[in-house]
């Protein structure tokens, strides 16, 4: 790396190489390579227990790995590296506030950095303004609501104007409406908060909404890294697909492969065409997203699509503005999601005959 401090967009700020962390005998994190670049929001996505928070603590140099190393601007760094400590800030999963007022909490890290009183006042005001809690400045923290406490935790980190900001599940633990509001604010804040942001979340929606790049973790390892679109459209493994909302059909066998498409014969007898290729005869699992299933009435559906099934509505599960349908055919059953409005337009009820279609590119085929 050059000696200049001004980082350009896309420069690697922080990277982990071969990071391994064990607790007792269990390997919690085992990550070959991860990079945090200037100008990006990187989401670390995975289920509970995937090692996300531990990876965050390793990257923020709050914990030391058993193996591997952390590089900041190309230089190996540890927990007590003064430059790294000054330039990163992390918000842990729960807002661990210390006794005192909201402003006192936000000011703490600024005092630790020996900023002047007037500069501290100004930064505290700005940070509280960013998270919209200026009026709570002098309130004791033990009287705050959960959402307010989470905002204080965020303001505390914003005030130090970090180069890399780590957020560990910033909206977990909050009830739905508070969560939605904070998420909305995060979308607004995140772009201006820091040159680089690492966001740990178990919620694919949150990751896809906020991140430029996503790494998906399973069992301590990174199983896929890419843009939200890449992860969503071409999940690398069955786990990634199902974690990001895919449903799976019965197992099948690849019966024919032909220029980027293959034919899969399911155990139930149904035949599907999917994009991609595999060895003929290979045992596979076929996944799809319920929202990729196009539902229409028999008389108005086109007949040219490849994966076209005559089905009957077996169940209707309204979920707010959306309705989840279970569609049964002789040899197949499918989940579909349509809007409540579309359901009413089509006059769907249990027993209605409908045509379900799925594009070949919307089917994701994984080894069984």
């Amino acid at each position, binding site marked *: 790396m050059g000696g200049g401090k001004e980082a350009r967009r896309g420069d690697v700020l922080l990277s982990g190489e071969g990071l391994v962390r064990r607790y007792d005998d269990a390997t919690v994190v085992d990550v070959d390579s991860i990079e945090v670049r200037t100008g990006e929001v990187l989401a670390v996505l995975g289920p509970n227990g995937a090692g996300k928070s531990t990876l965050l603590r390793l990257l923020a140099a709050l914990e030391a790995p058993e193996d591997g190393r952390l590089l900041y601007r190309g230089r190996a760094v540890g927990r007590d590296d003064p430059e790294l400590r000054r330039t990163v800030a992390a*918000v842990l999963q729960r807002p661990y506030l*210390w006794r005192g007022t909201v402003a006192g909490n936000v000011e703490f890290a600024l005092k*630790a950095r020996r900023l002047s009183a007037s500069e501290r006042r100004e930064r505290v005001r700005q940070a509280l303004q960013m998270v919209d809690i200026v009026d709570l400045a002098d309130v004791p923290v033990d009287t705050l609501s959960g959402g307010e406490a989470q905002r204080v935790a965020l303001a505390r980190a914003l005030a130090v104007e970090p180069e890399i900001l780590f957020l560990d599940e910033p909206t977990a633990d909050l009830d739905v409406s508070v969560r939605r509001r904070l998420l909305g604010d995060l979308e607004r804040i995140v772009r201006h908060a820091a040159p680089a942001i690492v966001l740990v979340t178990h919620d694919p929606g949150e990751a896809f909404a906020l991140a430029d790049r996503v790494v998906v973790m399973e069992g301590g390892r990174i199983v896929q890294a890419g843009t939200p679109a890449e992860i969503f459209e071409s999940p690398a493994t069955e786990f990634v697909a199902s974690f990001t909302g895919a449903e799976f059909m019965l197992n099948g066998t690849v019966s024919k492969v032909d220029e980027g498409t293959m034919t899969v014969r399911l155990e139930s007898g149904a035949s599907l065409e999917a994009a991609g290729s595999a060895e003929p005869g290979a045992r596979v699992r076929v996944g799809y997203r319920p929202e990729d299933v196009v539902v229409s009435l028999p008389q108005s559906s086109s007949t040219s699509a490849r994966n076209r099934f005559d089905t009957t509505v077996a169940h209707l599960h309204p979920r707010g503005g959306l309705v989840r349908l279970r569609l049964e055919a002789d040899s197949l059953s499918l989940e579909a999601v349509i809007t409540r409005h579309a359901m009413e337009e089509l006059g769907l009820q249990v027993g209605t005959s409908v045509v379900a279609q799925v594009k070949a590119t919307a089917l994701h085929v994984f080894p069984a």
Partner: protein
Amino acid sequence: MDVLVDAARQALALLLSGDPYLWGIIARSLQVSGSAVALGLLVGIPIGTWLGLTRFPGRGIAVALVNTGLALPPVVVGLFVYLLLSRQGPFGELGWLYTTSAMIAAQVVLAAPYVAAITLAAVQAVPPELRLQARALGAGRWQALLLHLREARLSLMAAVAAGFGAVISEVGAVMMVGGNVHGETRVITTAIVLETRRGQFATAMALGLILLAIAFAANAFITRVQQAAPRRRRPLTS
């Protein structure tokens, strides 16, 4: 029963009259035990913090030793300090025996375990993530540690009160190393022993009342600290 009531009545009169002998003893008691607790804090807080926040082989034994320290018999402490300070002892040169310095030294040994034990519990009661969060915002190790202690400050004040309560009411150690010299090393407890033996029940009772009041104040403070619950201005979810 009359003896008791009479003594109590005379004791109150003595206290209210501002008897110089009586108040001199009370002042010396406060000075000796106050100094001992202050020094006990300097020793006990680092030990308690260290034992509370670190893990090392033999830590269990160290914690057990600190807890044993809570039950140290004052006369035994008095004996050891006496031997250390006696003319033939290693610190005989200091000439501290039968001075308030010796009494303070003995009471530091008695107070430090109280401070260490309560500090240990207090720092362990603060979530360790708090220190991690401080580090995560750029605080150095010491800054994070100070923050941790600040979070435990109410309990640490209880440590002060408990240590003070323990030493101001002990008689064995101060008697042995101080010698109960009139006007020099006589404190509340040793004076009570002497005045009772001399049949001066009113004086003994007056000092006893003061001692009770001090013990009550210390424990009332500890209770208040332990019962202090966070106030809630609003429900937790808005």
